[in-house]
């Protein structure tokens, strides 16, 4: 396993008028390929800030982030979209599908960003929807899909760019138990079978059994980093 994302001595400070608040404080963390990493912690602990910085959406105040071996904190703003496009797929709590587009078109949109269009885009989108078990829903609009189905479309969309990293923010928060398990199964398979690095921000204890590692964040700092047997002991328990 190599680190798909390497975070070193990361600090993020938000200015609040004359004052400032530190959302992340000296965070160092590796997200590995072929592994599901849970980022857990109470609200306001810095999880979303961390995933935003790892996803090259937000700039850190200091520290370094390497994505697929490339230092990204020093890259100019205009080069960051390409890093996201080529290496990272996002799965959001609120699905963030485009309501005006069908399931298939939502996936095709991600392909369009990679300049894959026309018949090839349609073929690939169908394949991806088939992979998440939604081939029969390709013409449906998001409003006509259940929460679980929406999230599966979102996963298909995240995979369209063939990223080696999947960053998921509370992917099961809006789902029932069955749908949540289906989504987590998929994310797990992406790590196990396809060797992708999967990082999930979550409060959901049901996700423990799908994790290879749990990183607990408190007040902007890494609290615990739990793996292996220690993790198995936690399964089913509150953290």
């Amino acid at each position, binding site marked *: 396993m190599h680190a798909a994302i390497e975070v070193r001595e990361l600090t993020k400070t938000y200015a609040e008028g004359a004052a400032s608040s530190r959302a992340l404080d000296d965070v160092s963390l590796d997200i590995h390929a072929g592994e599901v990493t849970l980022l857990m912690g109470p609200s306001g602990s810095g999880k979303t800030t961390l995933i*935003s910085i790892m*996803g090259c*959406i*937000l700039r850190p105040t200091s520290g370094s982030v390497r994505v697929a071996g490339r230092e990204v904190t020093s890259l100019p703003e205009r080069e960051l*979209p390409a890093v996201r496009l080529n290496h990272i797929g996002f799965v*959001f709590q609120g699905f963030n599908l485009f309501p005006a*587009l069908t399931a298939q078109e939502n996936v095709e949109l*991600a392909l*369009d960003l990679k300049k894959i269009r026309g018949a090839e885009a349609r073929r690939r989108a169908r394949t991806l929807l088939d992979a998440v078990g939604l081939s029969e829903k390709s013409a449906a609009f998001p409003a006509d899909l259940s929460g679980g189905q929406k999230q599966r479309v979102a996963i298909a969309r995240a995979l369209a760019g063939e990223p080696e990293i999947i960053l998921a923010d509370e992917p099961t928060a809006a789902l029932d138990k069955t749908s949540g398990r289906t989504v987590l199964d998929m994310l797990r398979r992406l790590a196990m079978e396809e060797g992708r690095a999967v990082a999930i921000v979550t409060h959901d204890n049901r996700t423990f059994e799908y994790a290879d590692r749990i990183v607990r964040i408190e007040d902007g700092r890494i609290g615990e980093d739990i793996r292996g047997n220690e993790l198995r002991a936690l399964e089913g328990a509150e953290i």
Partner: protein
Amino acid sequence: MASLAVRNLFHDKVRLAVTLTGIIFSVVLVAVQIGLFLGFTTTTSNVIDNSHADLWVTAKGVGYIEVGVPFSEKKLYHVRAIPGVAEAQKYILRFGQWKRPDGGNTSCEIIGFDPDSDMGGPWSLSEGDVRSLKLPDTVIVDRLYAQKLGVTRVGQTVEIHDVRARVVGFTDGVRTFTTSPLVFTSFKNAQRYAGLNNDQTVFLLVKAAPGANVERIREQILTSIPGVDAWPKARFSSMTTRYWMFGTGAGVTVILAAVLGLLVGVVVVAQTIYAATMDHIREFGTLKAMGASNGYIYRIIMRQATVSAVIGYGVGIVVASLAAFSSRHGGANILLPIPVRAALFGLTLAMCLSAAMVSINKVTKIDPALVFKG
């Protein structure tokens, strides 16, 4: 992605209706205000513009057509003697008093010209014949002002300056800026209606021979005939227009209304396009997270703005055209010539794209946490 831009636009029908209503309102507002401005501008000088004369000779110091000062008609013969002059005719425009058949009075602008000449006569004649004006005591008026003048048909008799006047024809759409209807008649009739002496004229209309240098004729008039000015038609037209539009409060009011219409239009369009973009701000944030470049997102926003502009303009200009069409028989003329329509399309597009630029500025500063909020 073209389809995202268009599909987003048409997905929320209510939002689309609000956006288009804003743009249509702006297009109609701006078009009508500019059309009114052009209508007023054109009306102020329409008598000059339709005179078919190359030069207007006036008494010295006459600044615009309504304040012509009588001078001796002998100067006509001096003008005719100048090389290059193909034709010169006496011409009168004076305010007069029109006594309606019901006994009421209203002011009018008496226009006296030579019915045998093609200079200075009425245009847009809808009933009657200009040659009828060779008969004594005959006039042609416009249907727009028929009610005001108290006449409804050819053959009716009124009085102007206590002199009998019989209506022998009607024009259609010959407007006046001064609210005093134009009354076309022969030069001789006009002298009596306007209370001028038999040897007086107010203007001389001059037509240059083909190939003759109009400016040279003008210079010769100025140097050889004392007490007159000579103006090329376009110059005299602009002098008259400038007086009414800028020398009086009326024109300034119209201009201010047009400018205000433009400003309100810009603000309404900016607000609606901005609001429409902000409605999709989360989607643009998602696109950014997915790796879309700013250029990709800009193109979507610009495409939406362009489509909105095209539809909004299309509907708006139809409504404005209907307003212009119906104004033909109203008190105020709305003119929307092709160049104005084209400019208005450019303006609408510019308004929408400018508003989109403001939205783009907002999109580039999207809070990344936005896309992660449930």
